[in-house]
């Protein structure tokens, strides 16, 4: 069935792109959002492998629990100004 392959390719692309987004985006808050996208698209892979229950748990536990917890921590520990990251980064570049 060609549809399955198309679906796999599509969601593999989404998974990898959002995972890259998690590690490359500068704001932790954006990373958390991308993590949510990645986790949801992984749930789709689970469904395609006949693991509907695990996919459901993925959505409930990961997206509904872990991700909310992480988002909460992002809010709690947020730095007041976002320019700091750039400054220290520039600092690092000079040093290395």
């Amino acid at each position, binding site marked *: 069935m060609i549809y399955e392959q198309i679906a796999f390719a599509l969601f593999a692309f989404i998974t990898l792109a959002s995972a890259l*987004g998690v590690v*490359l985006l500068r704001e932790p808050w954006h990373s958390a959002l991308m993590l949510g996208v990645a986790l949801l698209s992984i749930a789709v892979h689970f469904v395609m492998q006949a693991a509907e*229950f695990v996919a459901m748990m993925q959505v409930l536990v990961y997206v509904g629990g872990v991700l909310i917890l992480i988002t909460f921590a992002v809010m709690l520990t947020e*730095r007041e100004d*976002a320019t*700091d990251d750039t400054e*220290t*980064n520039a*600092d690092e570049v000079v040093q290395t």
Partner: protein
Amino acid sequence: MTTKPRLRVGRVLLPGVLAVGLFGLMALIVLNTSFGGSQGFPESIAITSELGYAMFGLEELQSTAGSIPNTESFLAAFFLIAVVLDAALDGAIVLAKREEEGKPVVALPSQRDDPDTTRSATGRETAADGGSDSTGSVTATGSDADSAADSTTAGSGTDDTGGDA
């Protein structure tokens, strides 16, 4: 949060090469492995109920005709994970609770004059780099000004080292 998404570049070249190299290596291994077709699961069986039987070790309930073979019993793991969640709860409570004067508090903090009244804090602070007098040594990394601002604004909310109240 109102800023638009930005990509981080720079300082990532070496780790990037490393990660790509690792992926290449692992992909090479997979591509050299000849997988057959997937066995899959029989159509007639409800996988969710089989999952439940496996998790609670109910072997006699696992449907016999055309069942899913070779699934292990996870009853032991189930017991064990109950204890793990206990431990996580306990640990998270210990870490996230805030205390003043050696006693846990629930309300928002008030000022504290002497941070070192607890025995746990004294005696060891001597060697732990500046002890508990808050942000002083931390901000030496080149962001003095904004950390100081940070601690005055956020300090009233979450500080319990007490030095900058």
